[in-house]
């Protein structure tokens, strides 16, 4: 009977978990998973800094979640690689003796690997879909204020449709208030990126695109162009100032009417 089985099945039908190399891999796997997960997530927290909106908090959460979800996979690959690397190195111009087995497949290992990776994939998808759904619903928020964003080589301009023709090139926003941006461009493609709030949308000439965010911290944050837009792309950046409701109203009132009232609140070009 045993002749009919592939050596791989034999290998798995013995008490494979008692093998020395298997135990080494399991220990390495646990240690490496913890190390990779911890250091990668610390690296990411450190780099991304303090979020200035709930959207950005979610972005950080997703990235950290994915890091922890994928570190067992990375840990497993690393454990096997390290175990192999430090077990039997052979240097020289002639090959080492052939391995003492000729296992060429293992349906069980393959199936396990596939099922786990499919589950992880499904998990990543669901995490993404839930957050995507939240973002989509936020666009329909009735309480949101609307701001029209126009990119041009190489500056951003902001129109505040609720006000009497106010236009600025430094964005002002009230804190804890949903804002819908209606973004377009006058010349080439730009990408409107409010860095610390974790939102981005391309500014396309001839079209208006939307994105939404609720800033939840008072302070000054960065807006950068994230799509190569020609000569001074690197300099197409400015600040967004998030202030209290009253400061925002005061600022809006103090601005002159520049006559830029051609946009409706829905962001269509009138």
């Amino acid at each position, binding site marked *: 009977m045993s002749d009919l089985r592939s050596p791989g099945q034999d290998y798995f039908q013995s008490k494979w978990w008692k093998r020395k190399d298997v135990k080494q891999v399991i220990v390495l796997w646990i240690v490496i998973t913890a190390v990779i997960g911890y250091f990668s997530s610390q690296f990411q927290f450190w780099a991304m800094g303090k979020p200035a909106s709930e959207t950005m908090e979610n972005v950080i959460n997703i990235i950290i979640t994915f*890091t922890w979800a994928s570190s067992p996979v990375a840990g497993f690959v690393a454990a*096997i690689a390290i175990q192999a690397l430090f077990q039997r190195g052979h240097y020289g111009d002639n090959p080492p003796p*052939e391995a003492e087995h000729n296992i060429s497949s293992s349906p069980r290992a393959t199936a396990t690997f596939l099922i786990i990776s499919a589950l992880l994939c499904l998990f990543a998808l669901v995490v993404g879909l839930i957050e995507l759904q939240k973002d989509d619903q936020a666009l329909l928020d009735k309480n949101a204020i609307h701001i029209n964003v126009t990119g041009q080589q190489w500056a951003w301009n902001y129109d505040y449709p609720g006000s009497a023709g106010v236009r600025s090139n430094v964005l002002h926003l009230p804190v804890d208030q949903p804002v819908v941006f209606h973004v377009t461009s006058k*010349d080439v493609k730009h990408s409107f*990126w409010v860095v610390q709030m974790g939102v981005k949308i391309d500014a396309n000439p001839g079209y208006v695109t939307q994105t939404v965010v609720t800033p939840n911290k008072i302070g000054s944050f960065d807006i*950068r162009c994230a799509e190569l837009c*020609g000569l001074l792309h690197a300099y197409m950046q400015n600040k967004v100032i998030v202030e209290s409701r009253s400061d925002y109203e005061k600022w809006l009132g103090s601005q002159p009417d520049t006559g830029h009232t051609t946009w409706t609140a829905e962001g269509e070009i009138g």
Partner: protein
Amino acid sequence: MTTFATKKEKKALIERLNIFTAFALGAIAAIIVWRLSLALLPADSESAPLFTREDKITLLSMIAWFIGFMTGIGALIAPFRWVQGKDLSHEENMFYAGKDMGIKRYFRYTTDHKVVGIQYLVITMVIFGIGGILAMLIRTNLGKAGGGWIHPQAYNSIVGTHGIIMIVGTIIMVTGPFGNYIMPIMIGARDMAFPRLNALSFWLIVAAAIPLIWAQFIGGISTGWSAYNPLAGQSPLGMDGYIMFICIFALSTMVAGANITTTVVRMRARGMTWNRTPIFIYGVVASVALALPAFPVFFLSQVMSGMDRALGTSFYNTALGGSGWLYENLFWIMGHPEVYVILIPAVAALMEMAPVFTRRPLFSFNVAVMGIAGICGLSVLVWAHHMYMSGWAPLLSAPFMLTTELISIPTGMLFLVLIGTLWRGRLWMTVPTLSIFALLWNFMIGGITGIYLSDVPADAFLHGSMFVTAHFHYTLMGGGLTGAIAALVYWFPKMTGKMINKRLSWIAFWLTQIGFNVAFMGMFFVGLQGQPRRVEAYAEIFSKGNLITTIGAYTIMIGMLILLYSVIDSWRNGQAAPMNPWHAKTLEWTVANPVPLENFEVLPVVTSDPYGYGRSK
């Protein structure tokens, strides 16, 4: 030199054509057409919405260059004979194959697949050399915060040229040298299915190089390698050079793709069933088969871009009724399969080496094939993940997120095959062996960061940042180039008849791998901090990460220079290689060094699978 020449007393036309006549004829044709179009083309009318005269002149001159060059190299001789109702004589065919021609055959339209393979190897190294110099200029400019010392226009052009030239270099780096030199021997064939098309695909790349160089002097490629419209529409004349370059290169890829696919399907040795076909062959075929649908789209996208510029059409010009989103779609329908065109053959090359250096069978050959096939199938369905933030179709974000994340499953299969082969093997520590570990490390990081990017909400933060740049360098350079260098070390003895210098290639390996990880970890960091891509100046907070990246880049440069020296030195003075230095079981190691013109005197018959290592108990 040949008996053929003395027989006819006078040198035949076919013998006179070489790289010099090609360049001369190309240049003459370009100059004539340039002068003619300058004199004859009407001026743009004052009221025209676009000014197109200069673009017409540039494109016409470049087309003339292309036709002149291809005529001058001799690509048209055989088709011309065919139109006359004749075919090449046996002697002419032998001349074309480069029989007894010495070094000269590398500079003419030679059909021998081994000559084409070496030509591809050299041009790949030249491309990486130039692309590497441009990369060093970029990193030097980004060494400190604030603007660098390169003018923004020049800087943007360097970034665009570095991008496109490296993409081209990585596309041809495995299927070019090894797909041409090794693949036919590996499947037990005497040459490719269409040897003249093989020569054509190589010389098309040389023809394409000139418009790219030309472009540098007429405004550069200041749009990044993706050349998005409408930015490309308003760019200087250099853009026309880009368009011509892509069109000719896409032709080359299509020709090579048809040729390699046919060769593998039709010309495998007797007994080489699909189960006994080495995995590297699958990788090469998958790569070119994926390029076959992708590159016509690339070609078309650039033809349309050229028409917008030169003929005043409005495919992409929003002001005249077109759409930049159309360009983005066409570009990425090519662009995403294209990254797997690069990656699959490199990974397959490492899977080919894994059994040799672990002295055991490839783990789960069928899973490896399924993984490659799965990646190919899914990769044509994921293109719009490059456009999540474009606003083109927000409702399609979720389906594209699904297909993109699904790709991690067949990619995981490739990992499984590699770690499965390492497991319980007897490791023979060589540069290719270590490259397998390097690939696992780099491609794991590249792959996992790809999952962050595939997630729409996370991409809202990461898109267009340095994080993306670091991610695709980890996959294409850390994965792809690592595999290609391992392939070079592995097949160097067969291709050159010499062993590569062991010590130097070890040093080069460690320097490039360490430098690579330092450089692109720094880039991940500044990406997460919020530095956009393709900027020539950045804020103070990014200076630490950028400095680290620049230091890493210089380390890579030193490693690459050592590798280059090691390759050149070993090629010239290395110790002669035995026929089968790695004691491998595939067919390319059964032919003598140097490989005879027709590879096999008697075509081999395959009776066993190529990975029969290991002792059965």
